[in-house]
């Protein structure tokens, strides 16, 4: 099937190329600028140098077209001969004791050059006979097949030389061999086919599926999500009761909206092709796929469709096994009672006495419960909200509320009892409904200031937080010959463009007026013609396109995974190999990929070991290279093997690997050479390299010295060595990024390993970093469990290869800084060798030109990637926000969580480029400046106190939390690696995760009631209120759950209710609780069920499983819990109240 899968997009490209001069000939991915005249922009030249030998792909000399073939067949120049003679000492079979690999005759290893390239049968899809590309044109005016000889040549043909029949008046969509679609497909002739259409089409009814619901993933339906994404379509989804894991698949030319295929069943054709209009071209398509047989193929899903891409997208692509993230869907509960306490308790001491139930004490603060009314509405119930508020009047009410001055020194209970949803942009209901989900795309200011001067006055950062590759429960997938884009700025068409009339649309980013292509006039959802504004692209702000070959620089790469494993003494001692091998064995089937998926292993200590896994071998062979100064690949075949073909050998290897090194005495680690080897191995294809490292690299290139002085861990002065010590890893990462290799780093070490340097290898190759301090499979079970669960997610999560992301924004706005893991290739283009669903990005923006002449600002992030199934796809998110001219409106629209995350990113940059204390000062100044700006512009403000607008009332608290976060804190003993890891996390995690890391959620869970509980799928999920992070809220009688994102603590007080301990934790009383519990047992009591329901509800929204610790009040571990109580004072840091006073003092200066 992969042949077919590849062939089709390619043929589409063939058609597309004929119009390339009009459509900009965007050969260079999303990057393609409009002018084809600039060769360095359009051609492969724009790409990274030596990224691909680009010329070869489009040539029709097919077997050689895929560069890997040549690369792999060629013996490594200069290396092989040498090693077979003089290097025999360096290059020998590993015959050490326990190795299960017998030594075969050496000649075998070197049989590289002529070996049948068994793993390259995946190149077959690219090696198509030229005839494969033959397309047949149907010309509407003639209604006859017009074979286009030019199309035999699978090369990019500019329109001028392409099709003479096409008088290029506007972007022309040419439909290959599409009997059903041809009628309205090519309206290039002067006759108005639109009028003809109903007549000539003879819409083949019930031919094909319009939407395919790929289910197969048993996530719980999340009805709340229907509000998001595809308003008109979600209705269809609900009709079918398939709100879970839905991928809606629009096919361009499909005519029957009523035929829903449920992908669980094989696509069944509702009707054979006999209904094809006889006027249509006979099936002259030479697609080799059976479904394009001319007459009535019975198993067709896309019959008659000109769709270049098989639309039977069998399963949810790539991430079929991953848990789909379903953000917590809070149901509009009734307002929880406000809880307060006697206010001026300045330094809340940890109360040993039983505290009153929070909500039983009278509220002394000015906390105004109705004030939260608008906020307590969760996002999905947006329509309710807007209807409740009744349009504009309600909106201004909302604004008034967000601007309500709050005196922070008097109001203590500023934390809402529930997670406040992000602020709603002040848009009309229509726009609001289609706007991008805040989980995917968020702006720090939901009201964009008109000018930079206004932004400067507000003293708030302007930026975006993106989570572009998030696991989505619902995503419209569009298969279309022409992807409609603005001809000048290349923006994808989106819900916020305006249609001037039927034939023209105005780009919302650059305001250019573009033509609507004919193809776009037909709406596959409603089956109607002439309603371009009803197309799914225009109805959804998050869509995915299947891209044609114009969006490829080379054939889509297969999924390639290489695992680079540390097997030194230290690594074996920690026992991670067992966990890793077992996890991989368990998940081998679930690795995202198709039949072309390849896998390889490299291990290293002071030497680098490769594993020959050629199909047919009885056992894996280990090849050992000890020349680490100039590492080379011993054989180019069979080190990366087809997973399907060599599965047994891979399993053998994984079973044997943990035992192979048990007696190793090698303590050195040659990480640098191993990475170089991995780079060389992956060079021809690209893919993902997962590196597991357990100590400081001590040998070869990239060796590092220990830089940490343990005595300075708790220094209040500056922290040194936050930046890398060498540029080796950065250079390597850039090389990798150029070859589309992403490197993920797993660091499992108990000693200092200079993560600051090592992390660079992932940072710039768009990888991810995982760190397990003091990992040990026996001594640290919590860490071990977390590693195991993380691996499970890591191995099975969706992955996109050779990706680029471009962020476009309305003219006048520009991006000036990017945060996250990637390489910035040009001003707005991020190069992501791999993209994973768990990484977030942030960008800072500035306003270059006044936005006075527009009322809406739009942002579009387009992520072009190759799915693990070898399809080129583009995921487009568009966000629309209003532009305002008043300072008060800017304050009213501030999104405090987004601001906090962006500030955290900026602070980390600052602490690396300048110093930690600078960064901390800058954070404090951000609050001071902002509040000063508000005071200076506020009118009705009391003279005393610390006044903030309600929208920003959490600002000081969040900044204080950031200052006490591991990454930025001073004075508390923090290991350098942990600090650096925390910085990496803050820079690469999505917003919600960052917020939990900085300001954890605290709940009391020993007395949860069903009051205000959520009812989802028969399970009752209690909703305890969020507590402020202060020891004042803790009581010895209670049990409290703290959710810090990647770790959860359950703190059990000394006098905790014994029923709770017995029913939930499974121990008779407090004294018998062990001090190292890491999970909650599954007990059949109501208490336990309720607690577990609540915890699993908390976990639902995140993809990585947090570590779980049960902490007794009297153990030493409790410091790890108490350090997160950010409102309390520590020896070196302010309490919240002190911090407010500090700010006030700074402001009055």
């Amino acid at each position, binding site marked *: 099937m992969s042949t077919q899968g590849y062939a089709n997009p390619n043929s589409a490209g063939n058609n597309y190329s004929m119009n390339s001069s009009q459509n900009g000939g965007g050969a260079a991915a999303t*990057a393609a*600028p409009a002018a084809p005249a*600039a060769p*360095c*922009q359009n051609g492969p030249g*724009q*790409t*990274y*140098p030596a990224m691909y030998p680009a010329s070869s792909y489009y040539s029709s000399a097919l077997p050689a077209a895929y560069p890997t073939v040549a690369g792999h067949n060629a013996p490594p120049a200069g290396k092989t001969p040498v090693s077979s003679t003089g290097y025999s000492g360096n290059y020998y079979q590993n015959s050490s004791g326990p190795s299960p690999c017998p030594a075969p005759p050496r000649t075998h290893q070197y049989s590289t050059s002529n070996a049948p390239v068994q793993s390259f049968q995946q190149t077959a899809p690219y090696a198509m006979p030229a005839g494969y590309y033959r397309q047949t044109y149907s010309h509407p005016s003639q209604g006859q097949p017009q074979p286009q000889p030019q199309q035999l040549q699978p090369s990019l043909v500019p329109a001028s030389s392409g099709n003479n029949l096409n008088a290029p008046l506007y972007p022309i969509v040419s439909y290959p061999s599409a009997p059903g679609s041809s009628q309205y497909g090519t309206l290039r002739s002067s006759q108005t086919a639109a009028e003809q259409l109903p007549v000539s089409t003879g819409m083949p009814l019930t031919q094909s599926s319009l939407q395919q619901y790929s289910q197969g993933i048993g996530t719980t339906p999340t009805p709340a999500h229907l509000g998001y994404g595809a308003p008109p379509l979600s209705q269809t989804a609900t009709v079918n009761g398939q709100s879970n894991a839905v991928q809606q698949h629009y096919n361009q030319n499909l005519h029957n909206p009523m035929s829903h295929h449920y992908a669980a069943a094989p696509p069944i054709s509702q009707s054979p092709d006999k209904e094809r209009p006889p006027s249509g071209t006979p099936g002259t398509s030479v697609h080799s796929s059976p479904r394009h047989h001319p007459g009535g193929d019975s198993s067709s899903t896309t019959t008659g469709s000109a769709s270049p891409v098989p639309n039977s997208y069998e399963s949810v692509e790539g991430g079929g096994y991953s848990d789909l993230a379903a953000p917590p869907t809070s149901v509009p509960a009734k307002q929880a009672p406000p809880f307060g306490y006697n206010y001026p308790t300045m330094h809340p001491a940890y109360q040993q006495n039983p505290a009153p139930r929070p909500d039983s004490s009278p509220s002394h603060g000015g906390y105004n419960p109705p004030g939260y009314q608008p906020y307590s509405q969760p996002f999905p119930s947006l329509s309710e909200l807007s209807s409740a508020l009744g349009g504009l009047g309600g909106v201004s009410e909302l604004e008034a509320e967000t601007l309500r001055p709050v005196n922070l020194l008097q109001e203590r209970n500023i934390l809402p009892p529930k997670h406040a949803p992000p602020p709603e942009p002040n848009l009309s209901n229509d726009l609001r409904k289609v706007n991008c989900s805040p989980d995917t795309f968020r702006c720090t200011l939901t009201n964009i200031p008109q000018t930079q001067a206004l932004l400067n006055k507000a003293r708030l950062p302007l930026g975006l937080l993106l989570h572009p590759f998030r696991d989505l429960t619902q995503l419209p997938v569009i298969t279309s010959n022409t992807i409609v884009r603005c001809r000048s700025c290349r923006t994808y068409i989106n819900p916020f463009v305006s249609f001037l009339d039927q034939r023209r649309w105005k780009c919302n980013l650059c305001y250019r007026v573009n033509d609507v292509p004919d193809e776009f006039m037909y709406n596959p959802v409603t089956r109607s013609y002439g309603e371009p504004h009803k197309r799914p692209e225009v109805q959804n702000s998050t869509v995915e396109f299947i891209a044609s070959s114009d969006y490829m620089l080379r054939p889509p790469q297969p999924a390639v995974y290489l695992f680079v494993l540390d097997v030194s003494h230290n690594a074996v001692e920690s026992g991670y190999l067992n966990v890793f091998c077992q996890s991989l064995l368990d998940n081998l089937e679930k690795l995202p990929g198709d039949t072309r998926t390849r896998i390889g292993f490299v291990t290293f200590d002071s030497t680098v070991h490769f594993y020959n896994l050629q199909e047919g071998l009885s056992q894996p062979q280990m090849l050992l290279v000890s020349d680490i100064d100039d590492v080379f690949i011993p054989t180019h075949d069979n080190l990366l093997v087809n997973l399907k073909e060599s599965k047994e050998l891979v399993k053998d290897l994984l079973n044997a690997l943990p035992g192979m090194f048990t007696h190793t005495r090698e303590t050195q680690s040659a990480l640098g050479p191993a990475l170089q080897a991995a780079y060389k191995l992956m060079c021809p294809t690209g893919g993902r390299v997962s590196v597991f490292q357990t100590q400081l690299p001590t040998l070869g290139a990239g060796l590092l010295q220990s830089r940490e002085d343990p005595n300075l861990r708790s220094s209040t002065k500056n922290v040194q060595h936050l*930046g*890398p*010590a*060498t*540029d080796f890893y*950065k*250079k390597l990462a*850039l090389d990798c990024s*150029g070859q589309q290799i992403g490197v993920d780093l797993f660091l499992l070490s108990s000693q200092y390993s200079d993560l600051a*340097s090592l992390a*660079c290898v992932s940072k*710039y190759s768009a990888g991810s970093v995982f760190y397990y301090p003091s990992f040990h499979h026996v001594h640290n079970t919590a860490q071990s469990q977390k590693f195991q669960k993380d691996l499970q997610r890591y191995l099975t999560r969706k992955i996109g290869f050779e990706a680029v992301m471009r962020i476009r924004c309305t003219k006048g706005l520009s991006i*000036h*800084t*990017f945060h996250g893991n990637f*390489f*910035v*290739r*040009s*001003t707005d*283009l991020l190069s992501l060798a791999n993209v994973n669903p768990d990484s977030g990005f942030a960008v800072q923006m500035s306003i270059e030109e006044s936005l006075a002449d527009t009322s809406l600002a739009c942002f579009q992030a387009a992520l072009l990637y190759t799915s693990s199934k070898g399809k080129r796809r583009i995921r487009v998110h568009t966000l629309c926000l209003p532009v305002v001219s008043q300072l008060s409106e800017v304050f009213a629209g501030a999104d405090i969580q987004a601001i906090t995350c962006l500030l955290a990113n900026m602070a980390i*940059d600052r602490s690396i*480029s300048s110093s930690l204390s600078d960064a901390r000062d800058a954070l404090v100044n951000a609050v001071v400046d902002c509040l000063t700006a508000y005071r200076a512009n506020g009118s009705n403000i009391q003279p005393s106190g610390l006044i903030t607008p309600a929208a920003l009332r959490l600002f000081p608290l969040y900044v204080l939390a950031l200052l006490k976060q591991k990454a930025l804190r001073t004075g508390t003993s923090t290991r350098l690696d942990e600090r650096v890891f925390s910085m990496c996390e803050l820079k690469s995690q999505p917003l919600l995760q960052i917020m939990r890391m900085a300001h954890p959620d605290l709940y009391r869970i020993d007395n949860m009631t069903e009051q205000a509980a959520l009812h989802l799928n028969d399970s009752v999920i209690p909703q305890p209120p969020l507590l402020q992070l202060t020891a004042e809220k803790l009581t010895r009688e209670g049990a409290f759950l703290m959710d810090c994102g990647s770790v959860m603590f359950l703190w059990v007080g000394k006098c905790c209710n014994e029923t709770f301990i017995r029913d939930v934790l499974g121990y008779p009383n407090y004294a018998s609780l062990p001090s190292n519990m890491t999970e909650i047992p599954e007990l059949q009591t109501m208490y336990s069920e309720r607690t577990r329901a609540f915890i699993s509800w908390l976990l639902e929204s995140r993809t990585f499983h947090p570590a779980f610790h049960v902490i007794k009040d009297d153990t030493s571990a409790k410091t790890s819990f108490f350090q997160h109580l950010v409102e309390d004072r520590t020896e070196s840091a302010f309490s919240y109240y002190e911090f407010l006073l500090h700010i006030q003092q700074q402001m009055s200066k």
Partner: protein
Amino acid sequence: MEAAVFISSLVDCCALIFLSVYFIITLSDLECDYINARSCCSKLNKWVLPEMVAQALATVLMLVSTHWFVFLLNLPVASWDVYRYVKVPLGNMGVYDPTEIHNRGQLKSHMKEAMIKLGFHLLCFFIYLYSMILALIND
């Protein structure tokens, strides 16, 4: 002697002007996306040291020939060159780092710097030219 000093500094200055122009062209190529950050930075980093040496040479020449005014004119530029060369963080790939050049408006500030230097070198060029002619006439 006087003339020789100014002739050599004139030549030096010409080289610096060409270098500034080269910097500007390369940076604007990057701005327009004609080349990628990696190749741009490796191109430019190669010339950071020669530029610094040339600037230092001009400064030293003026010092030894005791032309105090021109020396003081050159000194800040020379010290700035040395300062930014010394201040490159360990993990960076030189004064121009491909991973950071698009961040925090660095590209713009590099561009501005190159422009200012071009202006400065042009000014110096005419000073040297004038002084050279004066010296030749005096001889």
